[in-house]
């Protein structure tokens, strides 16, 4: 690429520029606005006649008509290779800690650093042999990255069949070294290193097939795993008004979810929330591996005051990194907070392009973009017969907390589970504030569906009685109905609600959930005999306290068994003979 293609700015409107060009321009290719020493990354998003429209991933203050734009011929891409785990990137894969080291407190404009340290040595063990037939995604060997075997693979854009000509011996190498050479059927040789680039908006599909998600992704949040489960490779959304607990729920999931890798995409939300993760994760240990939680985490951080266009890119950056690790047979979880901010970034751009707006000024293609995004999740069978998965969970921040708005509605059409947070529940401090009546899932969880449905029926029935009581008062309610109400409340308080800040209660693994759920299920379907409502209330108050205390005791401890006995005794005293 000796002589670069150059264009000139003809118009500036917010973060969108129009650029006149001479020869040719590729849709979605990257261009750099050259202003002094700064190179402002931009992406072509529309081309008409001899004008290219670019969205600039930086603040456009100071740009002038006539400023030069250098076209690269490459689509917006990320670098894939060992060294991505535990990194903190902005939406364009710029490493934030390295930027801070080089530039201090503020984010400089137009600076691009290597996303992965090229000089770091990795210990490589070859697994492919000379003469082997290789395809895109076939491993040459692996390097240890934290607790994982990071596979060094044939780049995903090399379609067709290749023969391995040579591969280096076991030893320490950095990202600039040639690890092996492959040749295509025509005999043309290609050198491979440990890293390569991939365009973020194109899904990585170097797998045999996608399969229906069927293995539960355990989050250790009871209301999720038992009532509204998500499967590995599935998709789910968490809509809710401000302050309802979306971020806290995702933070808990990012800590305790039973997956290999968690990618947090902080998309247009508060910087302070990322800081909590950033500062706390290195100190916390992953219960499964005993290693620092940060080792299994990647943070993509494009908070609300960072440039809007990069916010749009950040969710794609996150999914691309996720797909890359999925190719290694790992289970990846993407948590995006908040997809509404991403949708708003699209809306801003669409407005500048003067496209015909849809509902609430969102572009007409909002739905298809949301669908495409969630479609990148999936449980896949890899060429070697192993499996990998990428699960996507996105929060939605609906205007006014009203779910009848375009982003929530478009999301609900495509996801497999809906964890709707309710203002009433969060105001009453019933956390996690997932509405047990409105939420739904298409996935199977760790508890047999029939039993869950039975518990859910009690909940619904109890809720109906409660609604009725608000009108007719307690006096007008029969004792039997009142017991339904109390049972529903009981299930809600001791099982659906969970103290996310308690070391024991916050982490309810499947064995525990199953055990406790069965106990509670039995209680819900026990016939109790009460003379009057105050007796019933008293009984359930005590039962509730006993069960809550139980929730705070480690399963397997002697106290746990003792507490269970107390509960049993309490129940027996009131069971109808």
């Amino acid at each position, binding site marked *: 690429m000796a002589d670069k293609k150059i264009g000139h700015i*003809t118009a500036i*409107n917010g973060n969108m520029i129009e650029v006149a060009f001479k020869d040719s321009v590729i849709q979605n290719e990257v261009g750099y606005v050259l202003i002094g020493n700064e190179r402002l990354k931009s992406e072509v998003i529309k081309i008409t006649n001899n004008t290219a429209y670019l969205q600039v991933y930086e603040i456009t203050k100071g*740009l002038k008509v006539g400023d030069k734009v250098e076209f690269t011929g490459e689509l917006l891409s990320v670098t894939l290779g060992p060294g991505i785990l535990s990194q903190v990137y902005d939406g364009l894969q710029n490493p934030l800690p390295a930027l*801070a080291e080089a530039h201090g407190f503020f984010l400089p404009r137009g600076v691009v650093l290597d996303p992965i340290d090229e000089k770091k040595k990795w210990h490589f063990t070859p697994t492919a042999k000379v003469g082997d037939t290789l395809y895109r995604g076939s491993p040459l060997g692996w390097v240890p990255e934290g607790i994982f075997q990071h596979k060094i693979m044939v780049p995903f854009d090399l379609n067709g069949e290749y023969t391995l000509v040579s591969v280096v011996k076991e030893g320490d190498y950095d990202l600039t070294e040639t690890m092996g050479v492959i040749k295509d059927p025509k005999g043309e040789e290609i050198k491979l290193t440990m890293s390569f680039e991939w365009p973020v908006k194109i899904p990585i599909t170097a797998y045999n097939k996608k399969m229906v998600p069927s293995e539960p992704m355990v989050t250790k949040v009871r209301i999720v795993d038992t009532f509204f489960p998500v499967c590995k490779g599935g998709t789910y959304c968490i809509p809710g008004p401000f302050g309802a607990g979306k971020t806290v729920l995702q933070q808990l999931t990012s800590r305790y979810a039973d997956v290999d890798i968690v990618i947090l995409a902080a998309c247009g939300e508060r*910087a*302070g929330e990322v800081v909590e993760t950033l500062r706390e994760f290195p100190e916390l240990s992953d219960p499964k591996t005993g290693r620092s939680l940060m080792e299994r985490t990647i943070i993509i951080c494009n908070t609300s005051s960072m440039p809007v266009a990069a916010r749009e890119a950040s969710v794609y950056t996150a999914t691309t990194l996720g797909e890359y690790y999925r190719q290694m047979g790992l289970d990846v979880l993407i948590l995006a907070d908040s997809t509404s901010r991403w949708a708003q970034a699209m809306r*801003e751009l669409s*407005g500048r392009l003067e496209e015909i707006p849809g509902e609430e000024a969102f572009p007409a293609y909002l739905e298809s973009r949301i669908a495409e995004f969630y479609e990148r999740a999936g449980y896949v069978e890899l060429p070697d017969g192993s499996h990998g998965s990428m699960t996507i969970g996105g929060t939605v921040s609906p205007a006014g907390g009203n779910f009848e708005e375009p982003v929530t509605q478009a999301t609900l059409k495509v996801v497999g589970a809906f964890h709707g947070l309710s203002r009433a529940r969060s105001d009453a401090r019933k956390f996690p504030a997932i509405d047990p009546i409105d939420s739904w899932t298409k996935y199977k969880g760790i508890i047999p569906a029939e039993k869950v449905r039975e518990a859910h029926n009690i909940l619904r029935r109890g809720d109906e009685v409660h609604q009725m009581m608000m009108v007719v008062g307690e006096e007008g309610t029969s004792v039997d109905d009142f017991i339904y109400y109390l049972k529903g409340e009981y299930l809600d308080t001791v099982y659906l609600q969970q103290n996310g*800040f308690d070391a024991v209660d916050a982490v309810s693994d499947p064995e525990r959930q199953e055990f406790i759920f069965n106990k509670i299920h039995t209680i819900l379907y026990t016939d109790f005999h009460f003379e009057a409502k105050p007796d019933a209330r008293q009984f359930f108050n005590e039962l509730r306290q006993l069960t809550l205390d139980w929730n705070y005791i480690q399963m397997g401890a002697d106290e746990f068994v003792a507490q269970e006995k107390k509960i049993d005794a309490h129940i027996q005293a009131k069971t109808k003979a």
Partner: protein
Amino acid sequence: MRKVYNKILSIVGNVISVRAEGVSNEELAEVSTRRGTSLAKVIKIDNDLVSLQVFAGSRGISTDDEVRFLGSPMKVSFSDNMLGRIFNGSGEPRDNGPALNENLIEIAGPSVNPSKRIIPNRMIRTNIPMIDVFNSLVVSQKLPIFSVSGEPYNELLARIALQAEVDMIILGGIGLKFDEYMYFRDELEKGGALSRSIFFMHTASDPVVEGLMVPDLCLAVAEQFALKGKDVLVLLTDMTNFADAMKEIAITMEQVPSNRGYPGDLYTQLASRYEKAVDFEGAGSVTILAATTMPGDDVTHPVPDNTGYITEGQFYLRNGRIEPFGSLSRLKQQVNKDTRDDHRAIMDGMIQLYAQYLETEEKRSMGFRMSDWDKKLLKYGGLFEKEMMDLSVNISLEDSLNNGWDILSQCFNPDETGFRSGLIEKYWPGEKKTKVKKADQEISKEEKKEEKPLEKEETNKDEKTTNKTKSVVKKSKNKKEVSKSSKK
């Protein structure tokens, strides 16, 4: 020399356009009219057609008035000489002091690298029990006061400003009424805080657009002082006026509105200001308190709604008091564990009892008979409102906590309050410790839990009263709806 243009092609709303070359995006220009000069900012460039937003408004601009480009974006002087001074929305003196031109800094600069932020952990004491005890304010927090106009939110801001232990106060007025502006001035003067304050004042009688730069001016200056190690408190009042000014420009520029006429980037615009709140590692901090009036007392209105999605909690000001329900400081748990061992217990316990009081009050107003327990609650509610919620109460956190125990002991027996016996032993005033025994047994379990991580007791107790809280919330919502529909 910069070129001067004197052919204005269009004047629409407060946006003018001229044909000019070599102009850069967001560059500043001066528009000279017979009435004087006004600053204007480049907001769009299409080839040689440049659109500018005129801060003094377009009224009286003639098509042959002069437009002179200044070659740089908006800057503001930054120095200690600013202390005690009052500027307008364009950063020019509004008092009789000299204009400041030294050490110019750009406004709306780049954002802080998230990896350089630290987790906030310093409490700001305001001596207002509803804040200090129930929703502690934290250094570097961004927090709005949601209220309808007519509520004393400016009084509240002034009071916090005076009582907060900060190094500096920067007050940004956007569409402030003149008497409110004078009120702030007098209060800070009386409190002896004027010499550590800076005002950027845009009043209701100034051109609307001129208010648009006020938050950026305040925050740019605050940021610089913070980098120099100062803890700065920025007060912005009223951010709804700011949003309305943005709406006006957006409509002029024929942008497609997203919600009730507000532009689609309202969230981003508000966030880029609020996110300037920061605690710098090894330097000072910026804390932002903002008044956000809610048109029609509707929290789902786009301005409070978008604000709530950005800020770290909110204070609801209603009937002259900070509402205990709905108000939230999302950072309080970072600080209230280290104040006094009864802080969290008082915070939760008193609110739960107050929730029960509200329910009783409801029953009373419907003519139900009051039980002994109800009577106790009624007495409690009255005392709580008078000695905790009333904004005229002005006591330290420790005194508030003691006062809390006092109120409790005037109304209840210890075992009726649900507090841990350890705390009751330590803090319950006077002789009334008799009934602790029975409570002890239940509570010994809880004591064990105490050693486990924080928050625990908070939630645990919550659960005991959630039903009640919930119904209270529901009811008060109903009430609101009723009052709304009756207005119609």
